[in-house]
């Protein structure tokens, strides 16, 4: 009797979440894999299976390769730059005061800095996109070009120059992301026992030495987590690029990325089957990246 009551309770608590999740999350994912093998256009009642044709077409699709190239650049630069700046700032905040009587201190005002640095993280990416559109304006009305004009420099087409546009977008991602990793790394640094620094400082290690010989090795796991998060962000970027650079990834597809291409292929060109094939490709890229990162960075853990 009591047992059945427990089963009833379990079933009652699981029913709604399971149904919602199955209908709106799992079923679209399953359908996406299925649709990637069809040439469905989104409205016809006939769904024609074309086997792996969509994937064959991907290999000859210039936009797809353009998008992959851009993701490659973002994957190589976004994590390195963001983590480097965040580690540097977190180190200054937590240990920048240098060794003192009772171990390492943070800098004066570090709480204020932390609050400011983290703030962009809570802003919607779409809002940040609109904000930077104004800042990057190609004429002297844009903030950056306005400053440059005062220094006598000609206005720069931050989002218009094909060679520059992607870097301008990456800069915004760094701007928004650094604060989060500062907080993440600060939490990691706070967990490092103070005597480690004291001992090293007694032995005459300077701040640079402390950072590379103690802080960095002991933060390895946290940095790895950050790396994976940033890599996944580099394979996304939809809201920012759609708002900042427009639907097609202007100029000349210099900022084309897969998510925006998928969105357009499905909803502007009604090629739902082909868009699903791109989605599947993106999924395997993401998984491959995560597995590779975990594999190559795995090492004996440093025991505290």
């Amino acid at each position, binding site marked *: 009797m009591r047992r059945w009551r427990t089963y009833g309770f379990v079933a009652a608590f699981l029913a709604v979440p*399971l149904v919602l999740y199955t209908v709106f999350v799992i079923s679209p994912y399953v359908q*996406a894999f299925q649709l990637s093998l069809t040439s469905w256009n989104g409205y016809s009642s006939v769904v024609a299976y074309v086997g792996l044709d969509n994937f064959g077409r991907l290999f000859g699709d210039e936009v797809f390769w353009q998008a992959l190239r851009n993701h490659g650049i973002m994957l190589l630069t976004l994590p390195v730059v963001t983590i480097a700046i965040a580690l540097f700032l977190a180190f200054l905040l937590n240990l920048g005061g240098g060794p003192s009587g009772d171990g390492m201190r943070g800098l004066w005002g570090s709480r204020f800095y932390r609050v400011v640095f983290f703030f962009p993280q809570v802003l919607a990416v779409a*809002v940040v996109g609109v904000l930077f559109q*104004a800042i990057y304006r190609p004429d002297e009305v844009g903030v950056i070009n306005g400053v440059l004009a005062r220094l006598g420099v000609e206005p720069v087409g931050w989002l218009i120059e094909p060679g520059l546009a992607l870097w301008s977008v990456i800069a915004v991602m760094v701007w928004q992301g650094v604060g989060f990793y500062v907080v993440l790394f600060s939490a990691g640094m706070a967990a490092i026992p103070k005597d480690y620094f004291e001992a090293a400082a007694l032995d005459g290690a300077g701040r640079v030495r402390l950072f590379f010989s103690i802080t960095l090795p002991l933060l390895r796991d946290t940095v790895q987590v*950050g790396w994976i998060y940033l890599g996944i962000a580099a394979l996304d970027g939809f809201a920012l690029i759609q708002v900042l650079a427009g639907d097609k990834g202007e100029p000349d597809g210099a900022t084309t990325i897969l998510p925006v291409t998928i969105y357009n292929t499905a909803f502007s060109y009604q090629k739902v089957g082909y868009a699903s094939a791109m*989605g599947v490709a993106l999924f395997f890229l993401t998984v491959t990246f995560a597995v590779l990162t975990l594999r190559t960075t795995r090492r004996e853990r440093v025991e505290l």
Partner: protein
Amino acid sequence: MLSGLSHVALAVWALLIIAPLLWTFLASFKNNTEIFGDPLRLPGELRLDAWGRAWDTAHIGQYMLNTVIVVFFGTAGTMVFGSMAAYVLARFSFAGNRLIYYYFVAGLAFPVFLALGPLFFVVRQVGLLNSHAGLVLVYIAYSLPFTVFFLAAFFRTLPEAVAEAAMIDGASHTRTFVQIMVPMARPGLVSITIFNVLGQWNQYLLPLVLLAGDPDKWVLTQGIARISTLAGYEADWPALFAALSITILPVMVVYIVFQRQIQSGLSSGALK
């Protein structure tokens, strides 16, 4: 000496964060002539008309209200259903428990883009396209994997004895959950609520796809993106900056009040 250099580095980054936001805020008081003048000059007088135009003509008020409604019900639903599922999965042993747990957590591995096309048709099929109810249900569904994952871990750490005592006193499972376990899990619930409120408040892609047909129902992120496009045609730049300020200010206030909880909520989420 080194300490001084540290401050310079920190202050430079702080300035890089504050300057664009401050500039936006100031630009909302300018008129078009001033905006097309020197971008570094302060507004000549405190004009509030752009704020009014952003709120009414550009519908920021409407978008704000829509967002509040969707995020309120979305987060509330996520927390209710997420904590129910997580609690049962964390503390009861039954056939299929592990399977269901991994079924939920598997959702974390897939990018939303993969589901995008089919999701549109699923929502249309159930007749909820262009409705807030549809968006709320989709928000709940997509927030469940992480919420269940996080809360299940949290419920597992709670001591067994208190729940057992309640059961011996004759409390039902539901009553034990509501009156004993939920209050005990409060720190975890607060973190994940903040996480979900922020995530749903800032969501752009899902409403873009699911509310495309009815501009009256749009949320803030969609609205801002559209105002930005329109500002180019209508040349009402002050209204765009006012709209941005109206969007950013409440977030900033909430952030400053709850910054401790928000920072620890988001970063503990990342480290789990």
